[in-house]
């Protein structure tokens, strides 16, 4: 300190002085300095911490840096009095390695001097940046004393500013990591920069993974460390998830560089290929595919680089030389490496093969069966041909004698072979009727067997439909008359020529009318025929015995004449309706029956005919 006179002058000018042996816990100061610092005592000594503690928190680091700078300094700081009021103080001084001396005086009007405004703005700006920085930022000196830090640092660590000011950087790390952190800090001071990923230890004992970057900063002549920490826990979690996926994926996943050398492989890939992880890394794609496909690797690489959705099947080769097929999906990663997912499809291939073999064997079986069926069909057709031939022969053989029976009976009945008595005429008439019935039976059986064997051919031709219908009516009118039945006929006047099988139409109408007359003992049998939309509709109604509802269903099946008692009373083959139904179907039409037992029946046959109008 200077002389007392000088001191008085300084006091008068409200200028305080101080002198500090660098690093000492106490420093010497003038009474005016003490006053400017808000101290009431006239002590010429004060604890360094008390001295620096009165400097506003935001200015403290800068002032300490200035004090430690070993060069002349001048700065403005706020001093916070015990009552909380702030005063702007102008500080100036100089120092060396051992001692700092300086003066302090109130800044103009106790406020920040105008000339410092620009600097102040600059500082506000950097403060704002520090506050808004998502990470944490801190500055500490070589001894590990924190000089500045951002608010985030307090928030993340949970320590107050006052606490941080007294703490050492290593206290923010778990004990187990402190050596490593310490080494990196040393690296910063030795080489200028370093970084580390390490857990930050908060006041409550929790840790969060941070990535820290430290850079050496000379503040004055004082080496400091400016550090930035970024919370990488989210990234670390994502990486962990990715790693789990990678490690536990059932598919093989490999990472290769742009020359197809493997950088990484998951457990599935290693298992698939039969390599340990360490062996796998460093292999080239050509090492794990079968030799025949090695030449295609370059082309595949080009494809992967060109398109995002590479998907091919490759034949891989295990370490033991065995091969297996696998689906490969590959893509280019942002870092320029290739990621490939390998799925072993040998099981699927095997299943496909098995399925194919099954199919083939099934096909063989089907072929065999088809051959057998074909042979059976041929046998059946042979049998059918034999049956048809037999029927044709038999019907011929049966009819030939019948022809002569009917013929000679006719001759004798006609009296051509001499005169007959009445009784002889009557009996011969019975012989002829029986012979004709037998012939009808044979014809019906032959017809039906031909229909059943699909051998009945339809021969459509143009003919006079009206004449045919009238002919049938005339033929059966005799029988109706014999039973004293009224036969009411209505044929639409417009019916003329038509095209279909004349003989079959005739047969159908004869059958229906014949049946009606046969099963009717008294009353009326009526026939009406109309052509509607190119279809002939013949309706035959009677007032006969009728048909039970349950018998209607089987009415058109062969040999189903309904009641044996009826059969005996009403002669017939029992084939008439069966033939009728099949013939109408063959002509593209249908026949339906409705009936009330005891009251009569109605049959309607509908047959397509081409009609000239």
């Amino acid at each position, binding site marked *: 300190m200077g002389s007392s006179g000088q001191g008085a002058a300084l006091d008068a000018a409200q200028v305080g002085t101080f002198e500090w042996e660098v690093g000492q816990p106490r420093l010497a100061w003038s009474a005016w300095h003490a006053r400017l610092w808000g101290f009431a005592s006239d002590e010429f000594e004060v604890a360094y911490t008390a001295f620096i503690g009165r400097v506003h928190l935001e200015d403290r680091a800068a002032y300490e840096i200035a004090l430690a700078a070993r060069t002349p300094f001048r700065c403005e700081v706020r001093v916070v009095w015990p009552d909380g009021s702030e005063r702007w103080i102008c500080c100036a001084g100089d120092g060396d390695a051992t001692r700092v001396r300086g003066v302090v005086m109130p800044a103009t009007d106790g406020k920040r001097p105008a000339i410092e405004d620009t600097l102040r703005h600059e500082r506000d700006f950097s403060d704002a940046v520090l506050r808004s920085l998502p990470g944490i930022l801190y500055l500490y000196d070589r001894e590990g004393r924190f000089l500045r830090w951002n608010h985030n640092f307090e928030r993340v660590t949970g320590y107050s500013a006052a606490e941080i000011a007294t703490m050492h950087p290593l206290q923010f790390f778990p004990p187990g990591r402190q050596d490593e952190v310490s080494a990196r800090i040393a690296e910063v001071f030795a080489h200028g920069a370093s970084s580390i990923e390490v857990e930050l230890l908060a006041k409550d004992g929790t840790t969060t993974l941070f990535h820290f970057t430290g850079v050496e900063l000379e503040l004055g002549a004082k080496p400091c460390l400016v550090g930035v920490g970024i919370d990488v826990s989210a990234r670390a979690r994502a990486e962990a998830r990715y790693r789990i996926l990678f490690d536990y994926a059932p598919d093989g996943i490999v990472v290769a560089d742009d020359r197809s050398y493997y950088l990484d492989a998951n457990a599935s890939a290693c298992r698939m290929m039969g390599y340990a992880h360490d062996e796998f890394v460093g292999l080239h794609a050509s090492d794990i595919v079968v030799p025949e496909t090695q030449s295609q690797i370059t082309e595949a690489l080009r494809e992967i680089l060109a398109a995002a959705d590479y998907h091919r099947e490759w034949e891989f080769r295990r370490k033991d030389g065995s091969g297996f097929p696998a689906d490969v999906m590959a893509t280019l990663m942002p870092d320029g490496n290739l990621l490939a997912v390998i799925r072993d499809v040998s099981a699927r291939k095997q299943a496909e093969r098995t399925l194919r073999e099954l199919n083939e064997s099934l096909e063989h079986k089907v072929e065999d069966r088809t051959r057998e069926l074909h042979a059976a069909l041929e046998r059946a057709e042979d049998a059918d041909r034999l049956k048809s031939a037999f029927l044709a022969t038999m*019907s*011929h053989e049966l*009819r*030939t*004698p*019948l*022809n*002569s029976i*009917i*013929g*000679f009976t*006719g*001759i004798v009945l*006609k009296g*051509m072979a001499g005169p007959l008595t009445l009784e002889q005429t009557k009996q011969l008439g019975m012989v002829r009727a029986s*012979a*004709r019935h037998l*012939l009808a039976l044979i*014809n019906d059986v*032959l017809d039906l067997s*031909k229909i059943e064997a699909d051998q*009945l*051919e*339809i*021969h459509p031709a143009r003919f006079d439909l009206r004449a045919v219908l009238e002919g049938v009516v005339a033929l059966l009118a005799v029988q109706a008359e014999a039973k004293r039945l009224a036969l009411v006929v209505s044929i639409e006047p417009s019916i003329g020529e038509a095209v279909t*099988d004349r*003989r*079959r139409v005739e047969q159908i109408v004869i059958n229906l009318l014949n049946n009606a007359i046969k099963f009717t003992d008294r009353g009326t049998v009526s026939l009406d025929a109309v052509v509607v939309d190119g279809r002939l509709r013949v309706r035959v109604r009677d007032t006969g015995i009728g048909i039970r509802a349950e018998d209607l269903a089987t009415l058109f099946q062969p040999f189903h004449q309904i009641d044996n008692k009826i059969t005996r009373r009403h002669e017939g083959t029992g084939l008439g309706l069966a033939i009728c139904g099949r013939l109408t179907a063959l002509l593209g039409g249908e026949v339906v029956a409705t009936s009330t037992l005891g009251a009569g029946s109605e049959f309607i046959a509908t047959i397509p005919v081409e009609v000239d109008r």
Partner: protein
Amino acid sequence: MTRTVLVIEDNEQNRYLATFLLEAAGFRVVAATDGPAGVALARSAPPDIIVLDVQLPAMDGYQVARALRSIAALDRVPIVAVTSYAMAGDREKILAAGCNGYIEKPIDPETFVSEVQGVTT
């Protein structure tokens, strides 16, 4: 002038029936019991009418009709086929083989002769 009818029919009764009816109507009848014999007869002495059973053993009526039509002297002689209950389609075959018409069995004594004459005129 008496016209001659050649009846080719294997069944004795039917042959006799046809012969009886035709002779009763004033025709002269020669008969053959099978196709080859009928063709030989027709060739040696051409008849005025031929009545031909379609269902003959060995050489059926169609073959016989074609054989008869191949003989120049017989190309204008009417041939009447006699067929059992003919199926549709049989008619076309009969006419295609060279017959002029056909009569269906059973032979009706009342109409047989007129049917034969109907085909031949």
